[in-house]
């Protein structure tokens, strides 16, 4: 399951059909239909009725589709979202294992009622509060559906503000904690290492790319974003670049030659190549190949570059 390629998670409000259509052409790996943050409270009932159609629209460019649901409104939201074609749900502001169990149980019911293969619908746990982060490990163990963990908008929900250094207060700690917990669970950590002032809603393509590269360096595999122009920098930032691939190939070649000579350690430049570095190089090449295959798949599905911003 963790082999899924999910570098860019473009979040769009379900209440904005034109944005969903635009997102479908954005080359995002995942489109997140949001029922939480970007839909005004009074528009939510109407928006819930549009999810089934929105899933089909969002899939047109080859993206997987998640729905972002409100933990406090999860019964109404899951009924609105759990339709064939949906890959999973991001549940915002989870704070306990019991809440995950409740979501898991309702997803199982809805799968049975709506002709979805049991266990199909995945959960990404949104850990956006202090309690949620405190209970991260228990939350992550509470359901076999948990595919990933994300801090989501923790910086805003926990009111974490920029430090003089540009780091968002407490985020370096929370990111590393999340990643360690996720890997201990065999799950993925979703996010990027944003720095003030160019972050989140206001980050341009270059800052988004840097946030993705820093994020990849500490263990994130993909990140949410809010603007179609952030999709390409995220895809690129989370994908090994040509120089990294070339270096990995060179390393593999040197290692194979060494093994043929009967040794499993070889000097390459001033570094030493052994099984550890080979394992890493092979993982990087596998990932690069899988990303390239995913990009071809999306291209075949008719994804187009995003429209220029008006």
């Amino acid at each position, binding site marked *: 399951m963790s082999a899924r390629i999910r570098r860019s998670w473009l979040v769009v409000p379900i209440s904005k059909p034109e944005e969903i259509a635009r997102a479908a052409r954005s080359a995002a790996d995942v489109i997140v239909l949001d029922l939480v943050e970007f839909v005004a409270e009074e528009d939510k009932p109407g928006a819930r009725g549009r999810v089934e159609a929105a899933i089909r629209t969002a899939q047109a460019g080859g993206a997987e589709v998640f729905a972002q649901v409100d933990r406090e409104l999860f019964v109404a939201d899951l009924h609105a979202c759990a339709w064939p074609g949906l890959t999973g749900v991001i549940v915002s502001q989870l704070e306990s294992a019991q809440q995950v169990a409740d979501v898991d149980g309702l997803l199982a019911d809805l799968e049975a009622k709506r002709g979805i293969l049991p266990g199909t619908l995945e959960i990404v746990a949104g850990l956006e509060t202090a309690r949620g982060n405190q209970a991260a490990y228990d939350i992550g163990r509470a359901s076999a559906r948990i595919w990933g963990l994300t801090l989501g908008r923790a910086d805003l929900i926990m009111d974490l503000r920029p430090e*003089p250094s540009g780091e968002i207060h407490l985020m370096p700690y929370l990111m590393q904690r999340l990643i360690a917990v996720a890997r201990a669970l065999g799950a993925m950590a979703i996010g990027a290492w944003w720095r003030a002032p160019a972050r989140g809603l206001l980050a341009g393509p270059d800052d988004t790319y840097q946030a993705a590269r820093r994020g990849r360096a500490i263990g994130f595999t993909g990140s949410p974003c809010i603007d179609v122009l952030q999709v390409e920098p995220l895809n690129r930032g989370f994908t090994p670049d040509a120089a990294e691939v070339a270096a990995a190939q060179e390393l593999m070649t040197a290692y194979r030659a060494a093994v043929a000579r009967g040794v499993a350690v070889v000097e390459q430049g001033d570094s030493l190549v052994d099984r550890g570095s080979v394992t890493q190089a092979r993982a990087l090449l596998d990932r690069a190949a899988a990303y390239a295959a995913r990009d071809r798949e999306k291209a075949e599905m008719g994804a187009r570059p995003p429209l220029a911003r008006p």
Partner: protein
Amino acid sequence: MAWRQVRRSGLTMPVVTRRFIDHAWRRGCDFINLDLEDSVPPHLKAHARSLIKGAIPVVRKGGAEAFTRINHDYVHADLEAIVWPGLSKVNYPKAESADEIRLLDAVITRLERERGIRPGTIEIGANIETAKGVAAAYEIASASSRVREFGGGSGYDMSRDLGVEMFVGFEQFAYGKGELELVARALGLQVRAAPFVANTTGSVSDADRAFREAQAARKCGFRLGGGLNPAVVEPQNRGFTPTAEDVEDARWVLERYRELTRTPDTWKVIDGRVIDGYEAARARDTLEWATLCAERDREKAAAVLRTRTAMAEPMSPASGVMRGDA
């Protein structure tokens, strides 16, 4: 927010040093922390205890709250000597277990009743200064409702316990500070934390640094200060108090947010800034804090005026406590 205390600045001072205690009220502090611990030599501990009851009203003459830092190893003797009307908080150093906090709570509860103090008045400051304290942080912070602010995780004791160096110019306490802050937030306590500002000198009297640190902390959303040297009091008061421009900016944000709520959008960008519910909440927080700071400054100024009048001493601009009244 239920929390109404304003604790931007405070001095920790040995209760045995008479001239510090006598002049404490002139410093403009929001609180004074009377020390029985590291600044009092062992042979003077008993004498120091006997001074606390008299020192409490003396250090409060300028409107400051009075705290006492006790000794980790002399809880009973120290508490018997310090829990008197006028004390706001007992600071307990090197807290390492929930049992310690429960013991403090039980003794303070009894003493409050015996001595006519409204039950629950006296806070416990659970100071985490060791690795064991970090490991037990959640249990410690949730052991008593008297623990109302929590955090820390750095300082000389922690540095000695962990074997890390002080004043290295990078954040050497990232893990422990993160743990403690997460615990404080998870329990809904007032967070004692600060953004990292490199300090390679260890100076305790650098007024410019104190101001920069306080300002950076306030911009990060933090409110709790304190120090060891009178030179940092006024810079901390100033750095933690929102400026007139901050207040004006917060009003502007709230006005833009009110306009936004009349549209179907949940956010928009104005002049390169995001306006949304989160920014509105921060703006309300700034306005509320500015009001609390102004109230606190008026209280302190009134207390200083009363004291000077009683002493027939003329007002002096040097005290600095009138600043917030302007």
